[in-house]
């Protein structure tokens, strides 16, 4: 029993710690109002670091997979990688938030506590091994995000986006719950493993019920990842939410959902692979189409990047649909690199916000190469990576996905994906053209004031895009290694 408690404690330690931190931040806000702003910021960031340390400790302590609380959770290197990425990406996003919040004169305390609550949800999601845990964690992740979207109460765009996000999110939750209940109806279990076992024996009506359940669950998760046709909230939210919130939205939540998706589909639903891979292909193809086409005529930078993110998610999903082990690792590699790259791109945009004005449209970047050459270069690397131009990481990521598609015999899909990438080049290269060749409009001629810390961090993402593109082998291999965990039951 003592061992059980210790194990339980060990397993939930990082999320419990972050939860405690969130509550402390909330209390600090309640009692000290704005005087504690600095404290809140630093304690949050240090806390995230400590959380990372705790996860690393788990790496040492749990070399093998451990099921916690009779399979409610599962702790293995896969879940730890997810937690680690969530914490690191959140750290990155929150690093840029403070200045942005000050610029917009928004409250610091509630923001950080909400973010931390959301992070708790993500951490639990990465370890979830049970439908109940998974659903509650998903809601815990999403709820603060709805609120954060409306964080700038003075902004009607933000409130509108938040409302839409919330309403459609409720619909998606409905899908999810309905799917889970259908699956429970067939398998009488919430445990991922038991569902997987039941699914492997399912036939006839049971299988139909299971597939319908999978369709509903997939719809719900696709909403969270922003996949077409469940993507409609995404551009509005990316554009309408405060920049710092967008920054938070693009990285960690998607990683968490992807880890859950891989876990769920590889553990529970893998016996029905032929059936759901069709669904994934459909959603992926639609996302590629919608994302790339809609981005073409977007002038708003963040909206354009939102559509681009839809197409990227579609690209990544292709590999999940192909789903050979190489495909999975390609998807994971793609997601990790894309999360970092898109975070970098949004960070650059956020950095360029100035007390005299924010960066809204693509043309606001005009002449950046002269105003801040290094930032322009970093942005170029990130955009190249998104477009998939060698030698950046995006190229390797796209290539490995295409290879996995070809290995699965999906030549038509691969051709389609390549064609869509070509369409995508248009709006990516437009950004670079504007940065390097266009004359800035008179009103926005100023050199961005960027602190050395933020510059260093954002440079890291740009260099990451470049270096990981040249030496991708390590991460690719690691993705393969770590993916053996969800595959073993």
């Amino acid at each position, binding site marked *: 029993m003592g061992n059980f408690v210790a194990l339980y404690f060990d397993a939930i330690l990082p999320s419990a710690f972050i939860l405690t931190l969130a509550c402390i931040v909330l209390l600090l806000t309640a009692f000290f109002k704005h005087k504690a702003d600095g404290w809140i910021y630093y304690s949050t960031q240090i806390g995230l670091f400590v959380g990372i340390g705790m996860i690393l400790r788990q790496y040492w302590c749990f070399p093998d997979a451990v099921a916690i609380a009779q399979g409610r959770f599962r702790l293995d290197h896969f879940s730890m990688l997810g937690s680690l990425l969530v914490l690191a990406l959140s750290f990155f996003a929150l690093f840029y938030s403070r200045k942005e919040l000050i610029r917009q004169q928004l409250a610091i305390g509630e923001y950080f506590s909400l973010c931390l609550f959301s992070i708790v949800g993500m951490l639990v999601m990465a370890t979830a091994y049970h439908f*109940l845990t998974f659903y*509650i964690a998903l809601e815990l992740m999403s709820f603060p995000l709805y*609120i954060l979207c409306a964080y700038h109460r003075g902004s009607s765009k933000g409130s509108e986006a938040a409302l839409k996000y919330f309403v459609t999110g409720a619909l998606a939750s409905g899908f999810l719950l309905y799917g889970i209940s259908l699956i429970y109806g067939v398998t009488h279990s919430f445990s991922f493993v038991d569902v997987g076992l039941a699914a492997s024996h399912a036939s006839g009506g049971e299988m139909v019920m299971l597939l319908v359940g999978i369709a509903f669950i997939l719809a719900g998760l696709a909403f969270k990842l922003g996949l077409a046709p469940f993507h409609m909230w995404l551009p509005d939210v990316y554009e309408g939410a405060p920049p710092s919130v967008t920054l938070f939205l693009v990285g960690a939540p998607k990683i968490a959902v992807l880890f859950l998706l891989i876990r769920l589909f590889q553990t529970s639903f893998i016996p029905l692979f032929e059936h759901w891979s069709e669904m994934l292909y459909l959603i992926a193809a639609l996302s590629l189409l919608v994302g790339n086409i809609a981005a073409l005529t977007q002038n708003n930078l963040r909206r354009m990047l939102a559509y681009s993110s839809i197409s990227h998610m579609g690209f990544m999903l292709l590999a999940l649909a192909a789903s050979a082990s190489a495909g999975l690792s390609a998807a994971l590699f793609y997601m990790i690199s894309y999360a970092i790259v898109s975070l970098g791109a949004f960070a650059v945009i956020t950095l360029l916000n100035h007390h005299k004005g924010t960066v809204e449209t693509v043309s606001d970047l005009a002449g950046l190469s002269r105003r801040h050459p290094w930032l322009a270069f970093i942005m170029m690397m990130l955009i190249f990576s998104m477009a998939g131009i060698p030698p950046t990481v995006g190229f390797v990521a796209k290539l490995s996905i295409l290879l996995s598609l070809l290995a699965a015999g999906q030549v038509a899909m691969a051709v389609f994906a390549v064609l869509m990438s070509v369409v995508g080049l248009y709006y990516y290269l437009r950004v670079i053209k504007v940065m390097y060749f266009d004359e800035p409009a008179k009103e926005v001629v100023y050199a961005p004031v960027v602190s050395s810390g933020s510059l260093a961090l954002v440079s890291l993402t740009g260099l990451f895009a470049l270096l990981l593109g040249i030496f991708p082998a390590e991460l690719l291999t690691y993705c393969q290694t770590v993916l053996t965990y969800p595959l073993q039951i």
Partner: protein
Amino acid sequence: MTATLIQLVFFAFSAVLLISSMMVTLTNRSVHAVLWLILAFVATAGLWILIEAEFLGLILIIVYVGAVMTLFLFVVMMLNLGEENSLKRSYKSWVSFGAMFAVMIVLFFLLLVAPNETSVAVPAISSEGNLVQLGMALFGNDALSVELAAVILLVAIVGAIYLTHREHRHYKKQQISEQIKVTKKDRLRLVRVTK
């Protein structure tokens, strides 16, 4: 005989639940909507009791019908909302879509799932009774989930307070960092005054 009776009760409660839920969205008056919602909860509670989840059914009536909905009614009455004609009109065009989808999903289940209907075995209810089982679950393995659900509520409270709090947050104060950053160019403009 009992099976038929149970089915009869089930369909009756289901019908009430469906109709009342639909009325929640279709009615023009907010007060009516809340009342229809109460009916929906009652019907749900009936369904739960039918599957021998008595505790949950009663809790639903006590908590939702007795407390939450009453609060809702107060709020709605205090806000004194009139008929939402404009809203209704804009939603009218969606009714056809809704009906279409409803028909489609019913057809889907009738055609695909119903023919292959398998006897979905109800798990055996343990002798301890489901209240004990519920307790064991909530405070045993699923304790963390319960905690997390509580956190969701906390988040909801924080969000609600933050978003609706009337205190003017956009107060004016010195922005010291901004003041330091100011350059001559920002404040001073030299103008050549011609004669």
